[in-house]
C-alpha cells in the first residue's frame, strides 16, 4: 500500500475510471489546463484532451445542468464545484433535475452524475468562502451524499460514485487535500453506504465525518490517556443515507453519544443522528446525546473570532467530560 495525499487519491480515481470508460468525463473551473485548484484533476487534460476534461466558464448552474443532461444519455460526468459555497448556484439543477429525474420519469431516466466540492472553513476565507453545507444536501431524496475523511475513502468513494447509477455529492474539505494516508495499490471500491469504526471503545461513541473524524480520534486519545475513558469513533462517510444500523450498534454498546460537526447545529448532522438514536435505541442511553458544532454565525474573517466560531478536538473532550460529570 502506498502513502499518498488525498488529492492524489482523487486524481488516481479519476484517471483509472477515465482510462476504463470513454464516457467518464470531468468538468469544472480551472480543472483542465491548470489541473484544478486542489490538483484533483492534475495531468488529466494532457492525457484525455479537452473533449473529456472540460475547463468550464464560471457558470455553475449552466455546466452542472449540462453534465446532468449528458448523464441522461449514459455519460458519467464528474463535476468539480471549486468551492461548496458556489454550489448554491448549481443546486437547482442538482436537486430539481438530477435528484428527481428517476422518480418523476417513473424510472425511465437516470442521472449517474458525480458532484465533488471543497467545503469547510479553511483559514480566514470569510463568510462567503467558508460554508459547511452538508446538511443542505443530506435532506434531498434521490441524492446520495458521501464525505471522505482520508485518502483511501476519497479514492474508493469516488470510484464507487462514478460506477453508481445514482447522483452522488462528494463533500471534501479544503484543509484535507494534502493529508497523507494509505491507499491500496490495487483497485478498490469503498461502499457508498454504511460507516466505519475508526477506533473501537466501550464508554462513549464519538460520531464524526470528514474533518471531525480527526477531532474525534484526537479526543479519544486524550480521553484514554488522561481520563481513562474508552471512546469509540464512528466515521460517517455516508451522510445520506445515514447508517442507522451502525449508529444503533455502537450506541447500544457504549450507551453515550457525542456528535462532532463543523457545521452549525440547527437542522444538521447531529440533529439527525440524535433523532435516529431516539428512534433506534433510546432506552440504551445512559445520558442525553450531545452535539459539538459551530456557532450560528456567518464565518468571521478575524482569526480569533474564526477560532471561536469553529469547534475542534478540545471541544469534543470537554463535551465528553461533561457527559461523565467530570467538568
Amino acid at each position, binding site marked *: 500500500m502506498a502513502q499518498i495525499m488525498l488529492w492524489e487519491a482523487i486524481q488516481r480515481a479519476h484517471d483509472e475510471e477515465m482510462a476504463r470508460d470513454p464516457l467518464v468525463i470531468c468538468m469544472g*473551473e*480551472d480543472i483542465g*489546463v*491548470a489541473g484544478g485548484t486542489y490538483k484533483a484533476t492534475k495531468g488529466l487534460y494532457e492525457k484525455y484532451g479537452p473533449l473529456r476534461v472540460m*475547463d*468550464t*466558464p*464560471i*457558470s*455553475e*448552474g*449552466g455546466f452542472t445542468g449540462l453534465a446532468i443532461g449528458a448523464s441522461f444519455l449514459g455519460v458519467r460526468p464528474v463535476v468539480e464545484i471549486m468551492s461548496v*459555497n*458556489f454550489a448554491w*448556484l448549481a443546486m437547482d439543477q442538482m436537486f430539481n433535475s438530477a435528484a428527481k429525474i428517476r422518480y418523476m420519469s417513473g424510472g425511465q431516466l437516470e442521472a449517474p452524475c458525480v458532484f465533488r466540492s471543497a467545503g469547510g472553513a479553511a*483559514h*480566514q*476565507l*470569510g*463568510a*462567503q*468562502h467558508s460554508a459547511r453545507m452538508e446538511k443542505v444536501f443530506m435532506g434531498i431524496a434521490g441524492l446520495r451524499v458521501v464525505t471522505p475523511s482520508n485518502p483511501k475513502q476519497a479514492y474508493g468513494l469516488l470510484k464507487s460514485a462514478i460506477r453508481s447509477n445514482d447522483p452522488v455529492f462528494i463533500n471534501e474539505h479544503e484543509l484535507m487535500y494534502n493529508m497523507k494516508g494509505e491507499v491500496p495499490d490495487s483497485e478498490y471500491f469503498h461502499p457508498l453506504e454504511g460507516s466505519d469504526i475508526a477506533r473501537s471503545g466501550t464508554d462513549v461513541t464519538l460520531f464524526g465525518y470528514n474533518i471531525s473524524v480527526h477531532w474525534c480520534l484526537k479526543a479519544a486519545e486524550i480521553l484514554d490517556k488522561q481520563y481513562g475513558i474508552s471512546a469509540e469513533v464512528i466515521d460517517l462517510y455516508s451522510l445520506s443515507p445515514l447508517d442507522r444500523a451502525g449508529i444503533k450498534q455502537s450506541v447500544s454498546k457504549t450507551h453515550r453519544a457525542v456528535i462532532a460537526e463543523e457545521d452549525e447545529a440547527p437542522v444538521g448532522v447531529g440533529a439527525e443522528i440524535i433523532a435516529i438514536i431516539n428512534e433506534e435505541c433510546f432506552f440504551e442511553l445512559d445520558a442525553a446525546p450531545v452535539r459539538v458544532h459551530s*456557532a*450560528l*454565525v*456567518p464565518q*468571521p*474573517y*478575524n*482569526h*480569533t*473570532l474564526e477560532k*471561536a*466560531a469553529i469547534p475542534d478536538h478540545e471541544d469534543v473532550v470537554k463535551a465528553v467530560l461533561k457527559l461523565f460529570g467530570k467538568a
Partner: protein
Amino acid sequence: MKIEDKKRVLREMVLHRRFEERCYQAYIERKIGGFLHLYPGQEACCNGVMEAARPGHDYVITGYRDHVHAIKCGSDPKEVMAELYGKETGSSKGRGGSMHIFDAAHRFMGGYALVGGPFPLAAGIAKAIQLKGGDEIAICFLGDAANNQGVFHETLNMAALWNLPVLFVCENNRYGIGTSIERSTAVVHQHKRVAAYNIEASECDGQDVEVVYEHARKAVDHVRSGKGPYFLELMTYRYRGHSMSDSRGYRTREEEELWKQRDPIFILRDRLIAAGELTMEAYEALEKETDAYIENEVIKFSEESPEPRVEDLEKYVLADRASQQQWLTGQAA
C-alpha cells in the same frame, strides 16, 4: 480632464498601487490572511470611471478585488488596511476581510466573493434610486469572466426592461483566475454580448485613465439623464496573479511585459512630464511620500488597532433585539 485633476489622479493612483503592494508584503508577513486579490495594472479603470461619476454620492458595488474601489469612493485607507488586518477599526469591523470591504457612509456597497453576485444587487440599488427619485446612479464593477454567469444576462434584461440607472463596468483583464477569455468565452469583446438587450455599450482602452474618463463621461451622462443602463468595457490587465497562490503558469512573461509597457500610472506620469507639469524628481518624491504615509499612518493604525472581542462573535448576525421587540414578541417595548 483639467490639469489639476490629472495631477490629483496621479497621486491617487500611486497611492492605490503602493497600498496594494504593501498588502502583498503584509500577506507574506502573515499580517493578512484568507484570500487577497490585488489591483495593480487596472488602476485607470476605477479612477477613470469614478472621475466621471460622483464618488461618495453614486453607489458602487464590486467583487473581491475591492480595496481600491472603496478608497476611491472615499474610504479611509487606514480603515481598509485595518480590515485586512482583521481589526475592530476596519471597514467591516474585522468581520469581512479583503473580499468584503463595505463603507455605506461613502456609498461603497461592498465587495462580494461570489462571481456574478453583484450584478442583480446593482440593478436593485438602481431600482431603489428610481423609486426614491434621486440623481444618483449605481455603478457595478466586475470582471470579464463574471459575464458567463446566467445572472449577468438576467440582470441585463431587467435593467433594460425597467430602464434602471445602472452603469455596468466590465474590467476585461483577459483572465478568470487561470483561464484565458478565449478559453472560457465564445465572444471576447464583452460589449457585443450586451447588444442583444438593447443596452447602450462601448469598449475602450483601460490603461489610459483619460481615455477611460472620456468614455465614462458619456456612459455616466447617459445613465444619469434617465436613458437607462449602460455597459462600458475596459480592456486592461492585472499584473499580479489572481490571488496570492497563483504562480501565473497560464500566461507568458512576454505578455506581462507588453502590458507593463502600458502601465496606467506611467502613461499619465509621462504625459504630465511631457507637458511640463511634472518632473521625474517630483514623481519620485511622490512615491516616497506615499510610502511614508502608508507606513507611518496606514500600517501603524492597523497594527495598533484592537481585535474584535470574542464576546461579540454573534453581534451583527441579526438586528439588535431591543429595536425589534414589538415584531419579535408581538408586544410593544
